[in-house]
């Protein structure tokens, strides 16, 4: 594995995302909604701070997730469709190095967007004379981990289908179900049959475990397995 090559491709991903109008739309959306959260907070009167922080965390999660899934799928698909990937693979670059570089670029930029939006939010809190709590950073860490895991699943579907829409829709469905895995397991345990569904649920990460003691390890295992399978499949994929 050539780390220099991976770094090069990751940087190109960051540049590409930086130049994309979609990135600016999402970023503006996050900044505007952070400001809107102040108005919502005012309406909540007694729980202004809670509304402010909950709303901010929700929009950050949804906004950055949307951004990372769409950027990841479009960047890889457009490289294949425009045959730009030929120019890259005609260099001493392995297919999996290309894919890993692309993926890491998007993950790094997702992290940077979260950091930047958080800074804006902290400034808003300070303007409102609220204390900044460590819990926010912790929750933002959880959001970033969830985005990494869902992005790795999106990577797998992008490799399999090379379709932006399919990959995006499946990833969003997995993200939704991942928040209710525990409840679904409980519901299925009360019903006879559906054995296949019960086992299928093990393929989906359970986001309710994220703040448990082994949460980080559990999420990393999912992230690692989905990424590894994507890299292996892409290395074997015939690019035409």
């Amino acid at each position, binding site marked *: 594995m050539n780390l*220099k090559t991976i770094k090069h491709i990751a940087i190109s991903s960051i540049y590409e995302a930086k130049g994309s109008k979609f990135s600016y739309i999402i970023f503006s959306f996050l900044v505007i909604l952070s400001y809107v959260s102040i108005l919502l907070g005012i309406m909540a009167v007694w729980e202004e701070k809670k509304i402010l922080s909950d709303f901010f965390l929700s929009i950050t999660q949804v906004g950055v997730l949307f951004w990372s899934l769409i950027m990841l799928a479009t960047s890889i698909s457009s490289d294949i469709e425009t045959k730009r990937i030929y120019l890259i693979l*005609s260099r*001493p670059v392995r297919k999996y190095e290309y894919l890993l570089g692309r993926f890491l670029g998007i993950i790094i930029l997702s992290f940077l967007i979260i950091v930047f939006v958080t800074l804006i939010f902290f400034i808003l809190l300070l303007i409102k004379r609220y204390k900044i709590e460590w819990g926010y950073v912790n929750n933002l860490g959880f959001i970033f981990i969830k985005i990494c895991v869902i992005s790795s699943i999106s990577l797998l579907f992008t490799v399999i289908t090379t379709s932006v829409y399919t990959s995006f829709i499946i990833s969003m469905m997995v993200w939704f179900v991942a928040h209710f895995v525990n409840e679904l397991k409980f519901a299925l345990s009360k019903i006879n049959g559906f054995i296949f569904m019960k086992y299928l649920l093990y393929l989906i990460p359970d986001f309710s475990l994220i703040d448990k003691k082994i949460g980080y390890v559990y999420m990393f295992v999912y992230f690692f397995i989905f990424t590894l399978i994507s890299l292996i499949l892409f290395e074997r994929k015939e690019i035409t």
Partner: protein
Amino acid sequence: MKNEKLLVITSISKTYIIKDLFKKRYKRAVSDVSFSVNRGEIVGILGLNGAGKTTIIKMICGITKPDSGKIEFEGKEIRPFDIDYKKNIGYLGELPYFYPFFTAKQTLEFYGGLSDMDLDEENIDSVLSTVGILKYKGEKVKNFSKGMMQKLAIATTLIHNPSFLIYDEPTSGLDPIAIRDIRNLLLFLKNEGKTILLSSHSISEVEKICDKVIIIKEGKLSLIIEKEKWLDNNLEDIFVNYAV
């Protein structure tokens, strides 16, 4: 040096699997093709659309792997997971797309970096000046015309100073002046000692600059002809007889 074989291709074949929703189809793209390229030559590959020219080029560049046969480059057989030999190859695809937000300089740094090169300003200026777009060094690629894009594409193939250049339709869709510029550039590169494999639809271009021509018909090798032999005949007539 002239008769030293740089590339030897022996009986390569390639079949693509086309997956539809419920069934697989097989398409034989290249069948049992053999030829060689000597160092310092410009060799043309001619053929109709879909004849298999691009597949042959993709196999040489390692973008796709042959199902059978072997490819030797600089005397060594290319194994399925070899990538080091690509440091000595510069590939230009038909209609090259670059990252639109990169400048010409950043594009060269990107592709040079992929070939493990640490580039300085002098390398970049020299290559951009060779292809005649030095004054657009800081310009974003999205503002480039088709001709400038093609020149930048040629610059990316030269930035790591490879000995072997593979150009797939480098003059496709260009105006006559840009075609003349690219032709002169190819002849200049030949004089600089580069070996060039040139796939083209334009018989007149190939006729003017190539030392040898390979004609591919329906994935199979139809004819290999040296320049001395087509000087007496019309290459267009030969092409019609062997490629159609």
